[in-house]
């Protein structure tokens, strides 16, 4: 190695002319490798911080949504945040699942585990999620033991990203109290406008279903009646996707059994 007549292989590699094919490929490989290592190291080391930020944002959106609802904001101020009861629901039976600890419940892990999720056929999979978790977290707001508001987290594939949203229903389980998108990566300026308060303001008062039929629909323009919501111009696919996501989650493979169980409890 120390022999000056025979330089190290690294030296010989660098001494090759820049037009040399081996050097071109070698440099390309080395640059790609170091760039990849740098990017993945940053991504992995910062992931917990980013996840915490996303979680805080989600909570803030939920609190802002609840505080903005007529009646609910006052109720929360009156009884404190304890009025919101997170629930773990068994989606196949619609009944509360007791085997989970609320604090350590990790819905993403449950959705990813084949043992605790259900594969969806193409016909069933309106939301474009592939597998559906068997257990989901929902939020009930109760006043004197009676349901005052139900918050259902929904998610599914949009035009180019996973859209995650909260659908808040009145005690009749059909009237929308609020709808808020808390995570999406749709086209900025077009589909991404579903996360804006201005667009979400059309939702309260809409009727998602009547007589067991899910009717809610996001239409490209000219919404008429209580079942239609105006979509964002230039983002038709985002609108169709959101319609499908709501139909999936309100349907028999989503929260359908749970909503039925809640209806029985009230009648």
């Amino acid at each position, binding site marked *: 190695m120390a022999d000056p007549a025979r330089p190290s292989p690294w030296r010989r590699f660098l001494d090759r002319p*820049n037009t040399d094919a081996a050097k071109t490929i070698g*440099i390309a490989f080395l*640059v790609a490798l170091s760039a990849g290592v740098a*990017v993945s190291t*940053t991504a992995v080391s*910062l992931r917990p911080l*980013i996840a915490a*930020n996303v979680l805080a*944002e989600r909570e803030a959106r939920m609190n802002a949504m609840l505080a903005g609802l007529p009646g609910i904001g006052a109720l929360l101020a009156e009884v404190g945040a304890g009025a919101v009861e997170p629930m773990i629901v068994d989606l196949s039976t619609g009944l509360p699942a007791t085997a989970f600890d609320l604090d350590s419940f990790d819905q993403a892990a449950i959705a990813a585990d084949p043992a605790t999720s259900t594969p969806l056929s193409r016909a069933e999979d309106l939301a474009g999620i592939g597998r559906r978790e068997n257990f989901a977290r929902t939020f009930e707001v109760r006043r004197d033991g009676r349901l005052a508001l139900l918050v259902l987290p929904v998610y599914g594939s949009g035009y180019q990203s996973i859209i995650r949203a909260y659908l808040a229903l009145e005690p009749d389980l059909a009237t929308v109290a609020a709808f808020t998108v808390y995570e999406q990566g749709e086209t900025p300026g077009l589909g991404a406008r579903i996360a804006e308060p201005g667009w979400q303001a059309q939702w309260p008062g809409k009727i998602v279903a009547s007589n067991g039929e899910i009717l809610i629909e996001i239409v490209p323009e000219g919404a008429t009646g209580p079942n239609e919501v105006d979509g964002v111009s230039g983002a038709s696919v985002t609108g169709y996707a959101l319609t499908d996501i709501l139909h999936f989650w309100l349907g028999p493979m989503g929260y359908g059994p749970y909503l039925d169980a809640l209806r029985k409890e009230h009648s």
Partner: protein
Amino acid sequence: MLPALRALSDPLLDRNPVTVHVLGICSALAVTTSVSTALTLSIALTLVLGIAAGIISLIRRHIPSSIRIIVQITIIASLVIVADQILQAFAYEMSQHLSVFVSLIATNCIVLGRTEAFALHNPPRASMLDGLGNGAGYSLVLLIVASIRELFGAGTLLGTQILPLIAEGGWYQPMRLMLLAPSAFIILGLLIWLVRSLRPIQREAREFAPIASPRPVQP
């Protein structure tokens, strides 16, 4: 003047990448509705440009010219992803406001322009200074445009109310146009006009002369 200082100060006015070369206009329109977003993107772009120029200059003798553009873009894009991740981790709300524009630093002509024109042929220290200087020049223009837009569009500067709005009992009626993209074009155009009037040396020669009419036009 010291050459190092010149490398930093020249791109502010005499060789400003935005007003002289008219590069980086896209992000200059998009993020200048408020000073805080413009400031964040300026810092991100300046750092990315400085570091990219340094790295590319370090390995400049070993970049085969047949793949030099893709090597530069790989290095720049990686730095941009790192910058984006850092923003998401430590300034989440700001990164939500900037949405795609942080990732679009990679396509900003100023970055590739400086590494291709300068860093590939100069030693690391000079290249980094050149990168930081050009970043500062871009930042200066961005901040001027953003200050004007935020002040007249919303009556605020960095979120502090400067001009009391009519809606809040003051006297200032905000100009909504200032918050829309066309106003950035107008302000940039006026700015370039102003700079070129003060520094006639920056005026470009006409690329073609208007066709002389064969006979005088009758009034």
